Each structure stands twice: as structure tokens, then as C-alpha cells.
């Protein structure tokens, strides 16, 4: 079964996809489907993005018929891609050469443009789940892209927040935050000419990090070549620092927030990357439990300034 179901209690669409249940879970390197010679990628490759065999959304989804005006359904239009960062099975983002991450950013740019060009796509969401703590089903370095047929609830919340800020203050919240944080320095983890990585004042997770372009750009395709290269550097530095925090592979959810480009107010949006790592200590997890899941209200057990200092102190090589 593959369909969208409407929840009138929250005004949101739920993707019902029985196919995703069939995804393999943590196969060994010998049976890795995305290694060269694996079931998905028999040929040699450097980087590749392909449509998921077990998708939550499809370009040709099955027909649906709504049962009534109460229980509304829609077809699950969309595209779910698996983005393979490298053919090497046993490296991750922090261990990849900077050049490889630069190429990855280039690929994300191209995927963004192509996926947004489909009629049925309203939003393109790039993300990576690293580690079994956040449900990664393959250990081979990879991320995913969901091209949604609707604007997901949290994206809509962001779009509305950007619009409200604009109406009230006449500016962009991220632009304002960047100016202030660069002045204050205390929450900054890493800074270059065009980007700043920081633990936000409003962090929801203990070691949450956001990467903000200093210039007001709405989406990845708007970044200059130089900026794309700097973004790659930030991704490498932050993930290296994460791994250095407790001397272990640090699990995280990495998410790219770009403008919903088909909306007229897309120009108000400011591109940013969020890392939401679930760990609050070496062996402790900050769970998305009842309060967080049920109310969207987060209780952060770590003071953001302290988290920033811990991450800042971890020395890493940029190469």
C-alpha cells in the first residue's frame, strides 16, 4: 500500500508506505546493496543518487479512492532517492576527502534543481541518518532525498516564521542571527568567510549544530562555487568534531532546509543545515519521547553555550 492520508486534527498529510518495511537493516559489507557489485550498483561509480527500491513516495504511485469526505486520501506522488557519497564502504562524511564532499555538494545542487522541476514536487528535502540510533538501515556512507508532493508541517512552520519575522522586523531571522552570533562568538563552533557553524541559542538537542550561509541565499543552487566548497569544509569539520567528542562514531540526523521554491514567498527563506544528534553523553540518548513527539516542545538538558565550547575545543584537521 502506498498512499497519502489526511489528518484533519493536525492538518497534515501522512505517508502510508508498506514498502519501506522491506528495507534491509544494517547488512554486512559483503551483502551491502550499494557497494560496487552490490544488488543496486553492480557497476563502478564515484557518487550516485538513485530512486529507492522501497520508496515512501513514487513518480507513478497507485491510484487511490477516498472512502469519504472525512477520510481523505491522495496519491503518493514524489521521489525518494538514495544518495551514495562514495564507493568506499567504511568511511563516513568526516573521513571522506574534502574534495569528495565538495563533489557531494555539487551533486546535491544538481539533484535539487532536477527534483524541483517535476510538476508534482512541492519540496525537496536532503538528509542523512547516521548510526543505528537514528534508524540508519545501511552503514555504507549515504544520505537520502525526499521530493515531497506537499509542504511538510515543520517546513511550513519555518516558512511562516520567516514571513512573520519579515513583517515584524523587516529582515530575515537567519541573517539577523548570523550578525549577532558572529559578534558574540560564544556559540560559534567554526567560522569561515561565507558560513558559520554554531550551536544555536534555541538548540533542541544537546549537541545540535546549525550551518548558516552568511549571505541571504534561499537554496543550494544559489551558492557560488566558493561557497559550495566552504559548505563542504563545514560539513567535514562539524562531523569530525562530533566524532572527536566522545572518541566514537557520533550518530546524527543531518538535514538541509531550502526554500520551497514554488511559493511566492520563497525569497524570504534562508538556506541552512541542521545537525540533530541524539546523544547527550557518551552512552546516553536524548530520546524524542512523549513531550517532544507529542507537543513539539523540546527540553534540552545541555546549555547551548557549553555544548559550543566543548565542540569548539576539539581540534581537527581541515584536510
Amino acid at each position: 500500500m502506498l498512499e497519502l492520508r489526511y489528518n484533519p486534527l493536525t492538518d497534515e498529510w501522512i505517508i502510508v508506505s508498506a514498502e519501506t518495511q522491506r528495507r534491509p537493516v544494517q547488512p554486512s559489507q559483503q551483502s551491502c546493496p550499494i557497494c560496487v557489485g552490490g544488488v543496486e550498483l553492480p557497476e563502478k561509480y564515484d557518487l550516485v543518487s538513485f530512486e529507492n527500491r522501497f520508496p515512501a513516495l513514487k513518480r507513478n504511485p497507485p491510484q487511490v479512492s477516498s472512502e469519504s469526505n472525512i477520510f481523505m486520501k491522495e496519491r503518493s506522488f514524489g521521489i525518494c532517492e538514495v544518495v551514495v557519497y562514495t564507493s568506499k564502504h567504511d568511511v563516513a562524511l568526516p573521513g571522506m576527502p574534502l574534495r569528495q564532499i565538495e563533489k557531494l555538494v555539487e551533486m546535491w545542487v544538481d539533484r535539487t534543481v532536477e527534483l524541483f522541476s517535476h510538476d508534482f514536487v512541492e519540496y525537496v528535502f536532503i538528509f542523512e541518518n547516521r548510526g543505528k540510533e537514528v534508524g540508519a538501515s545501511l552503514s555504507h556512507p549515504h544520505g537520502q532525498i525526499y521530493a515531497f508532493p506537499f509542504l511538510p508541517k515543520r517546513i511550513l512552520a519555518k516558512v511562516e516564521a520567516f514571513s512573520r519575522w519579515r513583517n515584524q522586523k523587516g529582515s530575515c531571522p537567519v541573517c539577523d542571527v548570523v550578525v549577532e552570533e558572529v559578534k558574540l562568538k560564544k556559540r560559534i563552533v567554526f567560522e569561515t568567510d561565507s558560513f558559520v557553524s554554531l550551536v544555536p541559542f534555541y538548540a533542541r538537542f544537546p549537541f545540535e549544530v546549525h550551518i548558516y550561509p552568511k549571505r541571504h541565499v534561499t537554496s543550494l543552487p544559489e551558492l557560488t562555487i566558493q561557497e559550495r566548497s566552504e559548505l563542504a569544509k563545514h560539513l567535514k569539520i562539524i562531523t569530525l568534531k562530533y566524532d572527536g567528542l566522545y572518541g566514537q562514531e557520533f550518530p546524527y540526523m543531518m538535514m538541509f532546509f531550502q526554500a520551497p521554491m514554488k511559493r511566492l514567498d520563497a525569497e524570504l527563506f534562508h538556506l541552512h543545515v541542521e545537525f540533530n544528534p541524539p546523544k547527550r553523553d557518551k552512552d546516553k540518548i536524548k530520546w524524542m519521547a512523549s513531550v517532544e513527539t507529542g507537543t513539539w516542545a523540546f527540553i534540552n538538558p545541555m546549555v547551548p553555550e557549553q555544548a559550543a565550547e566543548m565542540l569548539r575545543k576539539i581540534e581537527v584537521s581541515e584536510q
Partner: protein
Amino acid sequence: MRVLNNEVSKFFEDSFHDARFSLKKIDSKNAVVAKLKRSDEKPFEILRCNRISCWSFSERSLRHVFMENDTLVGFAGFEKVRIEEDAEQVVVFAKPLVETLIIIVRGFDRLNLLKTFYEVLWGECNLCIKTPKTLLMKGSFDEKFDRRSAFLLLSSDEDNEVRRYLEKGVRVAVKLESEGELQRFYNVGVRCFLLNDFKDEYRERYADCFFILQKGNVASAIGKVDGLIVDIKEFSLEELVLAGLVNRLLPLYVSAEGVDSKLLDVLGFGAIGWRRCTNPIFTRIEQERESIYEISYVSEFNVPGRVRIDVSKNSVERFFEQSKTSLKKQTLEREDGRYFHFYREGAS
């Protein structure tokens, strides 16, 4: 330039007060918003400027901004807009609606003034626009490709067709001939209407509908209806480019006849009669040099592009700047219909 019978410079003076309107100064922008307190007046003079030095959009429905030297005066929330011109002066008369705004902006260059004006207006109107950007007539409507991105435009005498398409799940827009037809088509499920006259009560009664005015003035349509059909035949190229800014506030619907449809697409106009390219559009307009505008967008070839328009030559010089990438891409379709996109180093 005189606004509401006052020299425009008066509005920027700290001591200036007038019982007829309230003033809000936006310091950093050097802009002033005047809100009229009464809305029951007959049309009266709101603006008077010098015919020779004044600039405004040439098309009547877009004549809601006037510029002279370093000052722009724009208005919204008026109806019965009447513009009288002689060899020396341009005088604008209008009747205020309930929410009326006159925005005065001072600064340099026309594009900057316009941008600031629309930013202020956007903020004041608290707008959130989400309207269909494409209305396609039956002949050009493709049920398979257009059902999610466009509305099928039908006339009000096509009752059976309206019902037939609605039953198939197609989104239908109906061009109304009379007010009575609105309720009738709403009852059968139509949610997008083209109409000649809009009444405020429609907003409450038909809260889930899009309303597009077939005739009207931007000054009275902003914040009231969801779109406006404009005739751009008389537009100069520069006006066409600048009208792209109006789209940030009020979607403008134009017919592609006789106009470069790709340019209209780039400028983000709503469309009637032809299928818009489905790519996202960045309607970022920058004035690169005197008379040269640059617009960033994503082209129909799925690559970020820019168009440079030299209005002094009265022609469009379009260039596509491909995304500079060092990657070569190869797309393969597997037997099960899935697409695989391979990227490797090497200029494409």
C-alpha cells in the same frame, strides 16, 4: 510632488501631523506609510506630480506607483482610481476603501525604490499569497501533466464540462458572467473564479476560494483578491521587468499572445492560455547597470540561469549560465523503471 495636498517632504518632518491620516515612519528605509482614517469619502485627489519628470507604469491597472526624482509614491486599498493628465501635470483621484495605504519612499534608483515600496507594502498588508499560477484553457490542458500544477479554465456556460472535470479530480477555474453563478459553481465544487467585480463578503462566505479579477487596478486589488488579469500589450520591456516585482504582492495573469512566453515565465507571471514551464523560478531582479536588469532563475533545462535584459535596446538578451560544476552526470534507467544518476569528476 504633492500627496494629499501636502508637499511630499512634509511627511518626513517629525512635527508633521494631519487629522485625516496616521503616519508610520520606517526610519532605516526612509519610508513613510500614511493610513487614511476615513473610508467613506468620495474620490479625491491623492497625488499630483510633474508630467515631465514623473514616471509610472504605463498600463492603467498597474498605475499605482509614481516616481519623481528620488521619491516614489505608491498606494493600495483604493478604488475608482482616476488619472488625469495634461501637458504639465499628472493628478490621481481615488476613493479609499476600508484599509488604505499611501507609501512614500525616498532613495536612489528606480529599482531600489520599487523594491523598498513592495517590501513595505508586503509587510503592511501581511500577505500570504498562494494562488494557482497557471490557468489553462481546455485545448491546452493535459489531464495527465497539468492536473497538479494548473487549473482548467472553463466558462460559466459549460456546466456539464465543469461537473465532468470535477468528478475526474481536475481543478477547475470558472470565468463568471454574473454574481449569481458564483454560489451555483461553488456548490458543485469549483474553488477558483475569474470575476468582474469582487465583494468583501465573498472572502468570508467562500473562504477556501481563489478570486482573480478580470479587470481592475492593482491599487484596489492588493490584499483583496488573489490575482489580477492585466493587459501587457502596451508595456515597454522595462515596465515588464519591473512589473515582475508586482508579482510578489499580487499574481498577475497575462496571455502569452505576442509576448515572449519564456520571458514572462522568468518574470514569474501567472499565465492564461499556455503551459508555463514547470521549473521553479527565482524572481530575483537586480539592476546591474543603467538600463540593464539581471534576473536569476532556473531554466527550462533544469539549470540555474540568468537573463540579462538591456531595456535601452528594447530587446531581450538572454544568456544561460550553466551551474559551473566539475561533475559529469550520466542517468540510467533500470529495468524496473528506476532512475540512477551517476556523477563523476570531469566537466560536463
